């Protein structure tokens, strides 16, 4: 599984904030601030991190729903940020996204049939009407919906069913890669389990590669091969799922894992409370971006020098001066 499907190199996306009268140049929110990571063919890379740290921006920049400012994204060895025209269209087809919100991401005025068949038409993947109908019915079956739903509208479905429709739309163009941006957060646990099982089945069947963004650390652990932890626009830890959950090395990851609400009082851990305020994404702290909130005994180096991502154990990367 070491063949790379996607290589992200030093990717950046900064959003300008309102300029104030005394400023020459507008400040920027550093939503994605220099991310370098590979995604292997057929794997699920989990992406977790503080709300607002840039996960959705990263996912959307990767497939060029947002144009990144800087960096490179290689897809099968080619830099797609350089693509335009038909080359871009071709690549877009192979990279899809499932949105967090099954309520807002489906056009309320389109029937389920047209929502799923529209991309097929746009990309001219089917020649006849009959072929299109067959394909749509096949897709519905794939995600566990009956074909009599074709003429109905999104508001007539529950959250879980809508999310299945979103998935059918995403897989309709036979993509290689899907960004799953919180695909199950809006669903209750029993439907969540159905959707996760569906995503795993489809992955096996079609050799799909996923970037799986979620706040639910249990779900991420369950579905991911590797997990990347983001903080203030950067990756601070990256490792195989079992390693990162068993032995988190970055103090932010440790705090995150300690805060998962547990049902069973026996498994409750002592929560590491992050101190201080959430830092500004406009003026990043000097040195290690996490040092103002760190529970380690920080040293001068943490305040001055930014820690690089280093391989602390085989395939286990962390950006912390003090981790060992």
């Amino acid at each position, binding site marked *: 599984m070491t063949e790379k499907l996607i290589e992200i190199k030093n990717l950046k996306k900064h959003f300008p904030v309102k300029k104030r009268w005394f400023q020459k140049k507008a400040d920027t929110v550093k939503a994605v601030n220099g991310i370098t990571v590979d995604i292997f063919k057929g794997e699920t890379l989990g992406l977790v991190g503080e*709300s607002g740290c840039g996960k959705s921006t990263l996912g959307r920049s990767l497939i060029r729903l947002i144009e990144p400012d800087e960096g490179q994204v290689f897809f099968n060895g080619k830099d797609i940020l350089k693509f335009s025209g038909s080359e871009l269209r071709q690549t877009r087809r192979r990279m899809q996204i499932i949105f967090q919100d099954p309520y807002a991401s489906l056009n309320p005025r389109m029937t389920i049939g047209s929502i799923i068949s529209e991309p097929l038409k746009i990309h001219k993947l089917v020649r006849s009407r009959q072929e299109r109908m067959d394909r749509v019915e096949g897709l519905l079956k794939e995600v566990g919906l009956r074909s009599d739903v074709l003429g109905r509208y999104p508001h007539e479905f529950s959250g879980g069913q809508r999310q299945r429709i979103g998935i059918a739309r995403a897989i309709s163009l036979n993509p290689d890669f899907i960004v799953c941006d919180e695909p199950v957060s809006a669903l209750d646990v029993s439907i969540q389990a159905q959707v996760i099982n569906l995503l795993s089945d489809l992955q096996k069947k079609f050799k799909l590669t996923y970037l799986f963004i979620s706040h639910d650390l249990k779900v991420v*652990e369950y*579905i991911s091969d590797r997990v990347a932890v983001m903080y203030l626009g950067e990756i601070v830890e990256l490792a195989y799922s079992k390693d990162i959950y068993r032995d988190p090395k970055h103090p932010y990851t440790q705090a995150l894992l300690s805060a998962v*609400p547990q049902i069973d009082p026996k498994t409750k851990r002592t929560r590491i409370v992050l101190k201080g305020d959430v830092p500004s*994404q406009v003026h990043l702290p000097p040195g290690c971006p996490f040092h103002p909130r760190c529970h380690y005994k920080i040293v001068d180096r943490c305040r001055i020098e930014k820690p690089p991502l280093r391989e602390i154990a085989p395939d286990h990367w962390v950006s912390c001066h003090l981790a060992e």
Partner: protein
Amino acid sequence: MSKILEVKNLKTSFFLEEGELKAVDDVSFSLEKGKTLGIVGESGCGKSVTALSLMRLIAQPPGKITGGQILFDGKDLVKIPISQMRDIRGNKISMIFQEPMTSLNPVFTIGNQIEEAIALHQDLSRKQIREKAIEMLKLVGIPSPYRRIHDYPHQLSGGMRQRVMIAMALSCEPEILIADEPTTALDVTIQAQILDLLKKLQTEMGMAIILITHDLGVVSEMANEVIVMYAGKIVEQAPAVELFEMPLHPYTIGLLKSIPSMQETGAGKLHPLRAIPGMVPNILELQGGCPFEERCFMHVPHCKDEEPKLRELKTNHWASCFETKI
């Protein structure tokens, strides 16, 4: 123990072309000062409609509260004129809505919106209002709040929007907070921070909370009492500790089994999660038997014929199932 809110036999329906959809069907519960009541249940089972009914925010038509009482402050909220309800809303009872984007106005800055919520019920100067707005944003963990108040909703991440909504709902220091999936878009550290904040307000001001969430871990950390809903009805009700230790309704048992547990690493590749098979029934097509029958692992022929009533199977522990045993 003082009851602050009592809901008796609440019924809310939507009158659709296909017929009457009984979204909330004979729901009763009470809420105590300073306590938290959790509501859980499958998507579409009527949790949000219950909450919106308490606020009298059901769109009419097609919706209507068709029966029952909502007793608060010596009044029945079902009966009072809507003008009186407006004074209670966002003042004594406030709500965090499930959909931040539909309840935040896209053309106003978030500062405007919080300030309006504060100004509506409190007599403060402009400067005090601004200060309070910034303080509230800070409390819910929004970075650089003095800068962020100038942002429009689309400039915020999903979790930030949700926190703005929470700040708005808390700014009037309500007696009852109805929180509909308040932390779904938040990472666990900020979630923990928000839950701590809610607990603090609860002990300091005796705020009571109705917490709707599908995160059973959150329910177990926050709730004193839990209601489980299915197809518009309460199917189980018990103190939180008791419910998680000994769920009695087969639906609740299935829910608890669907959660992936930590340290089952990489298991996604090995064995599938234990989902409850099948789909929620279409409420319009219910035939009178137990609504969970089709998906139930305990069902017997009788379940199709008669609908089980909520029974007290143990002290304070209610469930509606013929077959479950304690």
